[in-house]
């Protein structure tokens, strides 16, 4: 099941590199890349950390409409 995200857009808004975001949320640059290209679905903990970093809720960062339908 693929989960769409707006991490890339949020990073651009905050002028952050993948590496900087990875360092801030305690993961690797490769994982951020995989989440952005929808190859990998982040765990609840990582999703929370990313959303919390941008001061948003998980639903605002990750799009669950495919799962709901």
């Amino acid at each position, binding site marked *: 099941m693929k989960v769409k995200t707006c991490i890339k857009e949020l990073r651009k808004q905050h002028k952050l590199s993948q590496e900087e975001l990875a360092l801030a949320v305690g*993961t690797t640059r490769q994982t951020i890349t995989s989440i952005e290209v929808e190859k*990998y679905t982040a765990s609840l903990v*990582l999703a929370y950390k990313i959303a919390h970093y941008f001061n948003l809720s998980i639903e605002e960062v990750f799009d669950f409409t495919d799962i709901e339908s």
Partner: protein
Amino acid sequence: MMEKFRKKIVISTIISGIINLAAVGLCIFDHLIISEKISFQPVNEMLLSFQTGLVLGIGMVALMYTIKNRKALRDPKELQILYNKEHDERQQLIIQKAGMPMMAYTSGAMVIAGVIAGYYNTIVFYTLIAAAMAQLLVGLSLKLYYSRTI
């Protein structure tokens, strides 16, 4: 949490340093002492060369870890990156899917068994080493495959 990880890295650096010294010592022992001076029976040249290569390989990997760990210990950012890499959920998933820890352990055990068996039977030595290499190759290929697809 980071302090605990730092201690782990310090211990890991010490161990890899010891392995390095042991590898250099074993290489010298193998070639200068066993092969020429105190060998009372004909030494299988292939087995000796394989052992030297294996010990050198282990020494090189240990040296790589020593350099990486020392770099991380000097720079807090590098230490954080190393911590993140070791605790990364995607990386753990890839390793699990590739069946890596157990496959690497069994391959290591087969190499050790092969080296010991080599003193008694050359065919067993070749068979065990070939099986271990094939197993490692499968594990590494799976790891590479999942790194690209996950």
